[in-house]
């Protein structure tokens, strides 16, 4: 193992540390030096960015989506430097809600926000963010745990892992969607928005709306605290920029040419390049029901995570009685490793309550034995197995041979 290693970004140093810790070698020599030879409470070169947590599974830095149950399904959150695709439900009711949660989480964590929209003015979205409830923690700086760890001293400087489901942590907050967030909170953030109207000239025609957006995004990131290239000289604290592209690739984004899919693919490819070199987490929502299956497959290949919301519209199936729709996972992020995190089950459904949006594992109703008569079960059976067309009477008893 070489004694001097060069890391392109501070993020990779964190990942390398976690990786070494898993291997159990050489952590002592790297971290101990900082602790014993330099007296300041150095973090050992590890990056500490508020609102992020190091993944338990693969050492990536994650940011929360704003919905703790979605975070746990994704393995902790959205990895930094990746593109998260949300395939919209037909009426965009729930995807807009998820976008708002993502932005609200950015405000509460102190991240920067970037919204580029071609349909509605981004301010409309930003004025209706859900309000954090009192269970969420404030943006206080991390209390340095100065307990002398005599045995595990090598872990002293590594960032703490926090469970995203607990409400007390700095990562993952709870929101109340029936109230709106104060505008003053939103304004405290570093907010950049782009509204792509007809008044902006894009260059060679409407197809260059994609290129214009990407250039604008790149300009915002260059030489700012979101770029990973700068050394940690201390004058600009590294921060996360949440990039949100709501209703992307909708008909307003695309021109009239038939090769739109190439423009979209090119944009997503370049967005991935931008994301890999910066401290950004992108959320892109696309109405994929408008596209052909193979085009959607191509789009999914260029993003890192892809989930789809399928809302029940007029669904009468009693198995789904309490839920508002299904959450389908199409792709989970596999960055910097051979395997990826997989949730316990893929049968997920979501429900919109009065004050919050939750995602749950769907369970079948309990299988009571056949002889017990239960009113609810009979109803279910009737609806799932409708009577035969011949008009025969359905027997409640099973025929026993």
């Amino acid at each position: 193992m070489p004694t001097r290693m060069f890391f392109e970004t501070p993020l990779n140093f964190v990942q390398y540390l976690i990786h070494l810790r898993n291997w159990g070698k050489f952590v002592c020599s790297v971290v101990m030096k900082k602790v014993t030879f330099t007296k300041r409470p150095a973090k050992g070169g590890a990056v500490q960015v508020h609102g992020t947590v190091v993944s338990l599974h693969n050492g990536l830095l994650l940011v929360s989506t704003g919905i703790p149950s979605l975070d746990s399904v994704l393995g902790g959150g959205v990895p930094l430097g990746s593109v998260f695709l949300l395939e919209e439900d037909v009426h965009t009711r729930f995807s807009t809600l998820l976008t708002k949660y993502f932005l609200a989480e950015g405000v509460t964590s102190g991240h920067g926000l970037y919204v580029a929209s071609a349909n509605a003015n981004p301010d409309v979205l930003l004025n209706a963010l859900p309000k954090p409830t009192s269970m969420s923690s404030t943006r206080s700086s991390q209390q340095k745990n100065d307990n002398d760890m005599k045995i595990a001293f090598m872990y002293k400087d590594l960032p703490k892992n926090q469970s995203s489901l607990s409400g007390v942590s700095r990562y993952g907050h709870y929101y109340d969607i029936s109230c709106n967030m104060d505008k003053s909170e939103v304004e405290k953030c570093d907010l950049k928005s782009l509204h792509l109207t007809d008044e902006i000239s894009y260059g060679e025609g409407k197809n260059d709306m994609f290129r214009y957006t990407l250039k604008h995004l790149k300009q915002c990131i260059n030489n700012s605290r979101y770029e990973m290239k700068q050394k940690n000289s201390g004058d600009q604290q590294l921060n996360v920029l949440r990039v949100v592209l709501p209703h992307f690739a909708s008909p307003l984004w695309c021109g009239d040419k038939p090769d739109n899919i190439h423009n979209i693919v090119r944009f997503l490819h370049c967005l991935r390049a931008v994301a890999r070199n910066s401290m950004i987490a992108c959320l892109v929502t696309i109405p994929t029901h408008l596209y052909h299956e193979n085009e959607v497959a191509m789009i999914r290949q260029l993003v890192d995570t892809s989930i789809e919301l399928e809302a029940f519209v007029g669904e009468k199936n009693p198995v789904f009685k309490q839920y508002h729709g299904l959450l389908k996972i199409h792709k989970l992020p596999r960055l910097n490793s051979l395997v990826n995190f997989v949730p316990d089950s893929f049968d997920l459904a979501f429900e919109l309550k009065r004050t919050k949006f939750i995602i749950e594992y769907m369970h079948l109703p309990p299988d009571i034995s056949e002889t017990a008569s239960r009113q609810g079960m009979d109803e279910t059976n009737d609806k799932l197995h409708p009577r035969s067309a011949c008009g025969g009477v359905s027997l409640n008893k099973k025929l026993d041979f």
Partner: protein
Amino acid sequence: MFEELNNIAGWSLKNLPTNKMILISDWNTDASFLLHHFLAFYLKANSKVVLAHAAQSFIHYNLACSRLGVNLERSRNNGDLIALNLLDASLQQYVEGSCENLSLDSEECLNFLFGDNSLKHLFKVLKRCVENTKDALIILDDVTLFLGLGVSQKDLNYFVHYMDVLCKSNNCTFVTLFHQNFAPNISEPSPYLCCQLYASYEIEVKGLESGYSKDVHGVLTLKTKETEGIKTYQPHKVMHYRLTDRSLQLLAPGTSSAVL
């Protein structure tokens, strides 16, 4: 590298596949873990490797291969590995119209994105990289991406043909990844069939037909095209695989520990 895969295919550090094209194809899944295998395999055998990556950043390959026991950063500094960062070059060309700050190699090969939309320049750069070496390996991640970016099927077929000729003339091996869920335009020859035509080995990765399982991640089929010798029939080797953080376990279908 994945020892079990090497054993089944008959490859070893002394018996590297050369002069050949190896096609990795997948259907609705991601077979890029096999690219890491080939990277690690050839680097351990001290061959020269050219990695033209358009789908992921270099750091991804570096960290993933470190679990397999090779250090890509060190190989790049030594000169054993040439990494063509097509991802960043594509971004620079998209935003600025030219890529000046990147290495000369990446700049030229991305000229296809503006202009005649063919992969000629990419081919020229790859040829230049393997000019005077023997037993080199060229890895191209991911050929279907070019189809999505606007290259026509016909041009892609030409490119694959040129790469095959390069392999045979320069004694190098070409490995690429093809995602099968790209639907071809029927009026032109299908790029997948074209790749299959030139490839001497094809490793096809699919999910299980019965759905997702934690113990068996999918089906891996190794198809070999034997061109020398009298044997004209080589049955496909169908195996179930399970991918862990450091290795690939291959099992005969139905012999997973979860089943037995």
